[in-house]
């Protein structure tokens, strides 16, 4: 991908990060850490990797689909969806407020375009993504299904049920990503529940495993292209994506303390001073 295109994605990601901290500040609640860490990934996905149709319909036939399993990082998804044109960016101001379509965790109940299943209770998204990928095969579609999970989320047993299933059923139109930021609510994953050798685990389950740098746009875009090139070969694809929680805001980086805490006015100002406004704030 050309340097100018990478720079354009980075500019979008900067705006998305501004949206994230402003949304969480505006709601006085939400999850900025994981959202900031995954901003580059979701931008790369929606503005480069995915083949998307204009508009939104629930069935999503003949386009690539994305499922966010770790629903608590809804701010980044909402921002990317709005910036990609699924709904008006001004609606981001309603995040977590009464009568909003932007629920604390993603939901379909209020009809927000871009969302196809509720998530937030962890461990369920990979199963849903597997089902959607199999529906695409039944419909004789070539399109792909993407899914994102948190690393702490891998502690849920259902993830491994889906892992086993995807390999057994050769779901090779599925690219799942794990956000390896090493943090969860109660502390570093290594202290809370060590995940062990994740590459070996996913390979042992029958997946094709790649690793990527989730906060390096150039490298990330290349990794997603590599992942796409591996589809259609009889195995599901796992992208182990190394990120830093809170990336882009110096005082939020690399700590679980900003997993689910909103910045105050002063912290917001400090965060925004580090993030260029590229597309105009909502």
């Amino acid at each position, binding site marked *: 991908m050309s340097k100018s295109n990478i720079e354009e994605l980075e500019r979008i990601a900067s705006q998305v990060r501004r949206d994230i901290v402003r949304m969480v500040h505006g709601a006085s609640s939400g999850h900025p850490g994981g959202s900031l860490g995954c901003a580059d990934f979701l931008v790369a996905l929606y503005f480069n990797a995915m083949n998307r149709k204009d508009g939104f319909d*629930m*069935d*999503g*036939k003949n386009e690539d*689909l994305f*499922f966010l399993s770790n629903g608590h990082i809804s701010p980044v998804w909402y921002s990317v969806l709005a910036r990609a044109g699924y709904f008006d960016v001004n609606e981001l101001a309603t995040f977590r407020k009464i009568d909003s379509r932007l629920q604390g965790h993603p*939901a*379909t*109940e209020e009809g927000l375009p871009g969302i*196809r*299943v*509720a*998530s*937030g*209770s962890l*461990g*369920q*998204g*990979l*199963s*849903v*993504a*597997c*089902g*959607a*990928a*199999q*529906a*695409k095969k*039944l*419909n004789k*579609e070539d399109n792909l299904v993407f899914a994102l999970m948190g690393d702490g989320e891998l502690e849920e*047993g*259902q993830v491994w*049920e*889906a892992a*086993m*299933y995807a390999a*057994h*059923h050769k779901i090779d139109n599925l690219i799942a990503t794990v956000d390896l930021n090493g943090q969860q609510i109660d502390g570093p994953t290594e202290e809370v529940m060590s995940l062990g050798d994740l590459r070996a685990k996913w390979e042992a389950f029958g997946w094709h495993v790649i690793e990527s740098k989730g906060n390096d746009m150039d490298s990330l875009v290349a990794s997603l292209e590599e992942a796409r090139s591996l589809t259609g070969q009889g195995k599901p694809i796992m992208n182990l994506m190394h990120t830093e929680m809170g990336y882009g805001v110096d005082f939020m980086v690399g700590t679980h303390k900003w997993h689910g805490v909103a910045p105050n006015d002063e912290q917001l100002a400090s965060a925004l001073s580090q993030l260029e406004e590229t597309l105009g704030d909502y």
Partner: protein
Amino acid sequence: MAKFTYTKTQDTRSGFGAGLAELGRTNPDVVALCADLVGSLKMQDFINENPDRFFQVGIAEANMMGLAAGMTIGGKIPFTGTFANFSTGRVYDQIRQSIAYSGKNVKICASHAGLTLGEDGATHQILEDIGMMKMLPHMTVINPCDYNQTKAATLAIAEHDGPVYLRFGRPKVPIFTPEDQKFKIGKALHLIEGSDVTIFATGHLVWEAILAEEALEKEGISAEVINIHTIKPLDVEAILKSVAKTGCVVTAEEHQMNGGLGDSVAQTLALNHPAPLEMVAVNDSFGESGIPDELMKKYGIDAENIVKAAKRVIKRK
């Protein structure tokens, strides 16, 4: 003369299997998933005829619910098959978030419900499933009474857009409803007209209610019998209309008293037309191993107990 007779018994799960097989022939969007209980759920005919539309999940029910939710995205109509216990309590949060809250068109088909599962005992005899499922917004809850009705219900839920819990059982029970009946979700069925008491029954207890009515008639008591095959949405109009005539109610079900049909009817009466009510249901207890008839007698959910409840409730009018 008996108002309902039968010449044949069959398990309701076979009605499901027959319905699913028919759907396989008539509706190309229908897909089926099973968590290692193909034989028990009678899904083999569907599988034989539609191998590409069947997904073996293994013993992983949580994953099965998520898969089914995902398959609706793309227009499929997934039917999941496992025991009622593993279709509800084991996967409640998966159903709640990925199916009910997400409004997914998944049909949760649950066999071996209740005490009549028999010898396997209380670990498998779920008596709380109707309660769990009816509490979920968007969920439809159906408990048909015999083979023919279960087959008809299976066909009907494919036409209904939204999540459905379809509950059926293991033992062979009398077939007394018409073959090729049209099943209307949410429409109570008047089986026997009466004037002294109304018996609202669901599932296997509908036949017991018919037996109870015969016994009551011999004692000069006129009982109305209504089959509530759909617990949610409940046919409130039919319930109130009957109670306005008879003035008292017995509910009968193979479920806990807490959270079952009786609860739903009690709520309806209390909110609209208070009337004496007796519930024939399992009273805050787990089941145990045994043969179905013994268990229904021991836990107080057979025709004899319906008769006793009817006599009690009439005295309370």
